């Protein structure tokens, strides 16, 4: 006889208590105990365990890019980083929308921790990771020099921001919710737009304060759109 078999036999011998008596008892006692509180940090903590590794890795790759340049002196890498920004943003939204994509959001909404905060928590986590990655990348690309750091940061954040705003708007529509991968199409669109702007306005270099203002406005719009998306109700009806 193996140890496992002995254990199983002993466990089976005791069996389990009656689930309904147990239910009634725990419920009667739980009322006297402290009620659990739902908080956003608790939700963020839970969601952090369920965001897939690749979502974190994509952010790490952005930070790694400038390190490559430092060693091999491969200048166009900054352009690559700026070009992948829309896709990074799109992937982030797709990851945050996973529960919606897999039809699990309705269940999430009825749990203690979240009314609508599961998506919120996932987006905050991914957004924070990507934002931190962008800042780190900007600092590394410019080797810590303040002026070029600002330019680098703006160049990276702008496409990211525009993509996020459009994705949030898209995810509020029925089509967007049912086809989460369409965020990728948005990303491709922003990428093309970026190429067009860069080729047509190659000679025009606006000063940093103007770009900074534009970035600030876009970030405000992004936050507003994010809030709207978090508060969307499912509009499907039979």
């Amino acid at each position, binding site marked *: 006889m193996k140890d496992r078999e002995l254990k199983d036999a002993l466990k089976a011998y005791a069996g*389990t208590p009656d*689930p*309904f008596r147990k*239910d*009634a008892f*725990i*419920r009667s006692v*739980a009322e006297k105990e402290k*009620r*659990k*509180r*739902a908080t956003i940090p*608790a*939700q963020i903590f*839970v969601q952090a*365990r*369920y965001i897939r590794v690749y979502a974190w890795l994509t952010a790490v790759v952005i930070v790694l890019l400038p390190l490559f340049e430092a060693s091999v002196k491969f200048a166009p890498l900054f352009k690559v980083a700026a070009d992948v920004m829309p896709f990074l943003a799109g992937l982030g939204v797709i990851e945050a929308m*996973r*529960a919606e994509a*897999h*039809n*699990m959001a*309705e*269940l*999430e*909404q*009825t*749990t*203690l*921790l*979240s*009314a609508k905060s*599961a998506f919120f928590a996932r987006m905050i986590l991914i957004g924070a990771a990507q934002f931190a990655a962008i800042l780190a990348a900007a600092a590394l690309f410019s080797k810590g020099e303040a002026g070029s750091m600002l330019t680098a940061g703006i160049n990276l954040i702008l496409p990211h921001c525009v993509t996020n705003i459009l994705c949030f708007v898209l995810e509020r529509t029925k089509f967007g919710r049912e086809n989460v991968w369409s965020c990728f199409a948005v990303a491709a669109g922003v990428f093309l737009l970026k190429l067009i702007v860069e080729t047509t306005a190659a000679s025009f270099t606006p000063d940093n304060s103007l770009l900074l203002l534009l970035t600030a406005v876009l970030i405000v719009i992004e936050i507003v759109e994010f809030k709207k998306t978090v508060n969307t*109700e*499912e*509009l499907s*009806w*039979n």
Partner: protein
Amino acid sequence: MELIADRLTKQYGSKIAVDRMSFELKKGVIGLLGANGAGKTTLMRMMCGILSPTSGELSYNGLSVTSEEYRNVLGYLPQDFGYYPEFTGKDFLMYFCALKGLDKKAAKARCAELLDLVGLKDVAGVKVKKYSGGMKQRLGIAQALINRPEVLILDEPTAGLDPKERVRFRNLIEELGKESIVVLSTHIVSDVEHIADRIIMMKSGQIIWQGSWKESDGSLEDFYLKEFE
């Protein structure tokens, strides 16, 4: 323990899905009968606090259905639900244990118990996508029971269950109804005929009949069919 709806209405554009419904639900099994499109799902979503009514009120023991305290005692099985593709049955339950505020050790104990209760113990480590329809539905029921709900809302819970599973499920519901408010919607009369303490019949968003059905009242099925002809 009382769930009260007062002139509850939900309108989508010009369509009225739920039309001035009023009822008071107490401990026991409540069968919500109606054809597809009668507004059952809309009503249930409002009862879960995930859809806000156009007008009217819904409260449980004086608590708003959108409050944290209410969600703490609510269990819900939607008509259709999904899962992350990498989830096993156990992962799925553990995820919802976390969202329902159980710590890891308690979650483990509760998962084992629930998997046993719904007869999925042997397939706990199998990916949910390999489950049959009936197994998936049982997993959904287990998920709804995690927090030992006082209000259990089940939307078409018997869909996809085979006859044996149906019987097992009915017994489970009957037991649960002794301690909680169990609302279950269905378009199959036999699902609720013998276990429901109370029947609410819905048509085009309105209650057309409600009360407790006794044997002496004749066949509920006949009555239902007559109403829906």
